């Protein structure tokens, strides 16, 4: 009954891998029978987290980003893990419209979107050690009662 499935993907911190990561998470999440909207939510959150790893975590240097996904029941856990510079002040970084890279026209909405589109968001970061973003989303919430 409680179907569980897991996957791990590793890729280089290149911007063309942003769409690759979105495509992979969408394909993996498809088994939860999501709506277009739910799928878009997950893709957007992953896009934000992976972009953060590329331009902040590795600051456009070469590094490896891991995407770890676990499906259990009607819930998907997505972890985006980098071994980059880490975030000095996580609270500050998560403030809406806050950005350290205004010259890149970053809107400062990455974390806000992750929070808005996923049900749970957790950020673990240590300077010099890297950052792990943990996000959970329950898909097809309307079916919970019939489970």
């Amino acid at each position, binding site marked *: 009954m409680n179907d569980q499935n897991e996957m791990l993907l590793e890729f280089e911190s290149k911007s063309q891998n942003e769409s690759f990561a979105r*495509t992979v998470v969408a394909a993996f999440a498809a088994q939860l029978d999501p709506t277009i909207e739910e799928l878009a939510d997950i893709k*957007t959150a992953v896009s934000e987290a992976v972009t953060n790893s590329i331009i902040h975590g590795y600051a456009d240097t070469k590094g490896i980003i891991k995407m770890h996904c676990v499906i259990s029941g009607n819930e998907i856990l997505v972890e985006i893990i980098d071994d980059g510079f880490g975030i000095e002040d996580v609270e500050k970084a998560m403030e809406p419209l806050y950005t350290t890279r205004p010259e890149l026209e970053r809107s400062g909405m990455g974390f806000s979107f992750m929070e808005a589109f996923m049900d749970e968001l957790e950020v673990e970061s240590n300077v010099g050690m890297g950052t792990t973003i943990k996000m959970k989303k329950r898909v097809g919430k309307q079916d919970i009662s019939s489970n």
Partner: protein
Amino acid sequence: MRDAKKEGTSLKKGGEESTTYEICNRCLIIRLQEELDHHNAIQIREKADKFIDRNNIKHIIFDFSGASFMDSAGIGVVMGRYKKVIFIGGKTAVANVNSTVDRIFKLSGLYKIIEKYDTVEGALNKIQKA
């Protein structure tokens, strides 16, 4: 899958730039042909700014009919172009926005400063009459 298949999850060819730019009077129409993420944003921003600076552009219309996805990088692109033309009284508009992209715009609050139209023609008519 219930209805997610229609969304399409095709892989893009790396680095291919297919967004087109068209000038109508002093209005720049940017016809997006790719997902508007950080990767594509860099090229679009550079190209759009060249057109804006060289052609005395006043208004900007983003045509989203070829862009099914956008994240916060897209907000940066639209807001950045808005800032370039607002000082000369220019307007920024978006057209042919699907529901996925529409939600991002709504959440960002950008509709307070840019206008949404069903079609590019509709946007052109309204903007050039103003």
